[in-house]
């Protein structure tokens, strides 16, 4: 009896609301709209970043910016009384040399670690290594900078018998240690994405583990590995605090890894606080920001295109 009552009441209600848009229908529409806002917020923010830094730097770009000076002159003298110059060459070279050195140190090691974790290590060892790498990636950049300043600096001074240990070598090693876990993680993902059937097929033909890795896995994962390195470069290029604290921060075209240099990011971090809002110097710093934004955008775009190549079935 009870059962039938529920059923018939239920059915009656449904007949009544046969094909009408009800609360649930509108609620779904509302949620769809709300989450859509969340979705496009990412686009809004990336555009917003570009618009706002450009709007702050546009004055300099229009009136003062000289492409030959910016890319050609190593003289970054924004505070000079009689004749300020805005040559970013030394800063660009500084950033490039630190990033380059960091990649030199960390690319082989991160790829090696990725290969070991993905292809050799098993079970508990593998889990432990993965966790350790993940924890390394979490250390904040200001702490890395502090390590460069207070641990690496005296160490380098003693080891090489030089007066100052804040230089390309120091910042490069610090940056390398920072970027390595990220590159290793992405590279490991890329290696893991190679289907096991490939490996099994090669093993069935009698290939050794190393032959499988060098002839099958690495070539198949090459796009992912390239993307890993690119993202590492992007990370190094954009790193601020660690580079500011460990590089010596002197405007300089370096001739050896023991030279102090200054990075683009570090210049903004160090000088923005001391400029008057709207001044030429202030606007010049935002122009450096625009340059950084564009370069990292290109790096990330390239990495994304390379990774997309994987998904399109190039492995």
């Amino acid at each position, binding site marked *: 009896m009870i059962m039938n009552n529920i059923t018939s009441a239920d*059915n009656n209600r449904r007949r009544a609301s046969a*094909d*009408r848009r009800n609360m649930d229908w509108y609620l779904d529409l509302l949620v769809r709209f709300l989450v859509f806002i969340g979705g496009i917020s990412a686009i809004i923010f990336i555009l917003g970043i570009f618009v706002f830094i450009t709007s702050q730097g546009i004055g300099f770009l229009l009136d003062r910016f000289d492409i030959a000076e910016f890319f050609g002159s190593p003289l970054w003298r924004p505070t000079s009384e009689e004749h300020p110059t805005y040559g970013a060459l030394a800063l660009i070279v500084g950033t490039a040399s630190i990033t380059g050195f960091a990649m030199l140190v960390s690319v082989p090691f991160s790829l090696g670690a990725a290969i070991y974790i993905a292809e050799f290590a098993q079970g508990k060892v593998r889990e432990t290594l993965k966790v350790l790498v993940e924890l390394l990636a979490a250390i904040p950049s200001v702490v890395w900078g502090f390590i460069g300043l207070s641990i690496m600096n005296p160490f380098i001074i003693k080891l090489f018998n030089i007066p100052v240990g804040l230089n390309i070598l120091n910042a490069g090693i610090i940056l390398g240690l920072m970027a390595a876990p990220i590159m290793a993680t992405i590279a490991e993902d890329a290696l893991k994405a190679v289907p096991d059937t490939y490996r099994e097929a090669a093993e069935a033909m009698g290939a050794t583990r190393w032959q499988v890795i060098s002839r099958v896995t690495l070539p198949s994962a090459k796009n992912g590995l390239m993307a890993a390195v690119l993202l590492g470069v992007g990370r190094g290029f954009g790193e601020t605090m660690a580079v500011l604290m460990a590089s010596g921060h002197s405007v300089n075209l370096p001739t050896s890894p023991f030279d102090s240099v200054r990075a683009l990011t570090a210049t903004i971090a160090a000088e923005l606080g001391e400029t008057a809002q709207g001044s030429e110097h202030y606007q010049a710093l935002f122009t450096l920001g625009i340059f950084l934004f564009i370069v990292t955008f290109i790096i990330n775009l390239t990495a994304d295109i390379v990774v997309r190549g994987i998904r399109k079935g190039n492995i």
Partner: protein
Amino acid sequence: MVDHAQNRQTTGVPKIIVKDLMILYGNKTILRDVNLEIKENEIFGIIGPANSGKTSLLRALNRMDDMTAGMKVTGDIIFSGKRLQAWKNLYALRQRIGVVFPLPVGLPLSVFDNVALSPRLRGIRNQADLQVIVERCLRRAALWDEVKDRLHSLGSLLSGGQQQRLTIARALSQEPELLLLDEFSIAVDPVTTMRIEDVLKELRHELTIVLVTNLVQQARRLADRTAFFLKGECVEINETEKIFTRQAKDPRTMDYVEGRFG
């Protein structure tokens, strides 16, 4: 099979009319030129080898093309006198159609919540009412005795056969007017299959059933009329009895039923 004809109680009113139906995935045609009519309170069997488009037809009947990337449906499907394409509230439509697909899906909710989900979505909140509904549906799906003591364990961790019956119970909890069954017995043992078949025979007094099956004998046991699908085409629709007594119109149907291919 003699009493089969006497058993027929269809009202003759068409529940579903399918006209010139074509289903595409991307630009691959899965089903074409399907025309059929399913009568109210009928059990309509669909047989045919794999990849003949049977499952896609069921998806189209439930308007799941809306939720499936790349799936396109052309032609008309008329359900209870109204074109499916004209429905404003697809969710209300789907609530009236119960579906059981071959891969059993126990939702990662308790057994109770699995069956109570649809009533809850319809706005039934009263716990006592829900209990009545859950017990009735589980009994009908021949699952009650096995799970009555663990209604609060996860539905997704039941055995395959139990999950299949849970899926059936969930479909029944919708109080559907139309029940679409797609090879429901694939993960169920023969004894349970028989019990569910008995339930279906009872249910036909209340609703219309479309039964896609890989077991031709199941269609013979249950269906009033049977359609034979082959490679995306509806080859034949006929009285079930005729199909199984060598009176089929198309020789291919005969070959399939007698096990010469498929």
